[in-house]
């Protein structure tokens, strides 16, 4: 299906009186179903605002968003989200943290009591996929930052969301953990094919993971460039050092530098 996410002409101004900062201005982005899209831009360009608008957490001042053929006028109930901060609940074990969405999203919420075993197995499989086997019963504060982040990504995925919104989920991790998680993310995406919007400031990450990359301008954010990544799947980390990728990263970098200078 084409255009799973269709964000057209979205402007967003903070504050209720209409005199706040303009965060987004005529931002337009279309994402196909099952596509992996990355959004890059200079810091403070409204990338996180974009996430909130797409998921319906904030209403745009102008323009609109259509997700899965429906106009977004309230928070979506089909989205999985992960942030730079893992935001695990410290009173729940890792397994219970991952299963949190199942207690809320239908039809799982009404079945989870009866079919807890089945759901638990599912959560364990997912945790094993990101290398957290054996940590299911640990509490988040007993895990390292990278492990918590893996768990947080599992939480975003457990209910098989059609739309996955990732806001710099690997931003706070060290390089090696980050690359490891890129691979895990790619495996998961190839296996399940959700539609993914990844906000990041790491251009290598964007090129490695995404099918298409949007470049945003400095605030007020709008899309100033769009690049397709022509790399075969599954991708290997070494590809990020090939001339094609390096060229693409430099190209994106130039756009962002230019956007920063304008600001």
């Amino acid at each position: 299906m084409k255009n799973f996410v269709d964000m057209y002409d979205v402007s967003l101004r903070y504050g209720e009186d209409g005199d706040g900062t303009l965060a987004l201005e005529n931002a337009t982005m279309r994402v196909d179903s099952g596509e992996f899209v990355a959004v890059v831009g200079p810091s403070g360009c409204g990338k996180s605002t974009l996430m909130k608008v797409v998921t319906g957490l904030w209403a745009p001042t102008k323009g609109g968003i259509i997700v899965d053929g429906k106009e977004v006028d309230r928070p979506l109930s089909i989205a999985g989200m992960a942030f730079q901060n893992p935001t695990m609940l410290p009173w729940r074990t890792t397994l219970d943290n991952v299963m949190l969405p199942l207690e809320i999203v239908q039809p799982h919420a009404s079945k989870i009591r009866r079919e807890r075993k089945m759901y638990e197995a599912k959560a364990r499989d997912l945790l094993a996929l990101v290398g957290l086997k054996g940590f299911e019963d640990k509490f988040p504060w007993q895990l390292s930052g990278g492990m918590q982040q893996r768990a947080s990504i599992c939480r975003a995925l457990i209910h098989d969301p059609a739309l996955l919104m990732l806001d710099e989920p690997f931003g706070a991790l060290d390089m090696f953990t980050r690359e490891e998680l890129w691979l895990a993310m790619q495996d998961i995406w190839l296996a399940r094919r959700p539609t993914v919007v990844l906000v990041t400031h790491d251009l290598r990450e964007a090129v490695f993971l995404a099918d298409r990359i949007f470049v945003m301008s400095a605030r007020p954010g709008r899309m100033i460039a769009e690049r397709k990544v022509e790399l075969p799947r599954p991708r290997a980390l070494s590809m990020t050092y090939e001339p094609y990728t390096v060229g693409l990263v430099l190209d994106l970098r130039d756009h962002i530098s230019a956007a920063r200078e304008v600001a």
Partner: protein
Amino acid sequence: MSEIVVPAAPRRRRKFSRNKNFRRALPWLVVAAIFIIWQFFVDAFQIEPFVLPSPTAIFAAGWQWQGPILVNAWQTFMTTAVGFFFAIVFGLAVGVAIGSSSLIYDGFYPALVGFNTIPKVAVVPILIIWFGVGSVPAIITAFLLSFFPILVNVATGIATVEPELQDVLRALGASKWQTIRKVGLPRAMPYFFASLKVAITVAFVGSIIAETVGSNSGIGNLMLVASSRFEVPLAFAGLLVTGAMGIAMYAVASFIEVRMTGWATRGSGMGGNT
């Protein structure tokens, strides 16, 4: 061939102050020391018993009047417990409401702060006019004093849920109530249990104030009667009993806190400062 002398690694001596049993006995030792110094002070300066009775005189009075003390202590304990129970119920309910809705917060919080500023001693005579002399004013005073700290703490715990976490839940389509139940309430629990420790002690203060102003039973009343008859050692015995009950209730609240919210102290055992 040179002989290499390996210096013996300096053996670390465990400090006595880190000894666990010593730590456990420390509060008792402090109390005992206070009593000994007190006794010495009273004996050395020959202070009259109706000014400051010595600990031995206080204990003697306590032993002599153990019957009335027990009856009245039980009365105070019951009024405190009932008032405290209502404080928990109302504090939780109103705290959740205020913490989860900025509308309710903006509307009610200033009034609550104003109400909390009123000295409760001033309210007791009014309560006595309304409900007569007896347990009811004491229960209400205990309630009035202890419910505010609970309310404020629960509201704080709920209102300070991380915005990202709220986004995660809202993007799943969680209702307001689901967000409160899954995240807000558990998150507020450490605040709630911490507030119980404060609330239980002020609940005691409330009961005793009310008993002193207008009641015919309870430790507060006993102390009032004792001092009016110049039975100062008995009045002090009443004070000691009150203090002991306060510590016991605090210990219970603290024990429950550690059991219920061990995750908040990351299992380090730091929260259990009973």
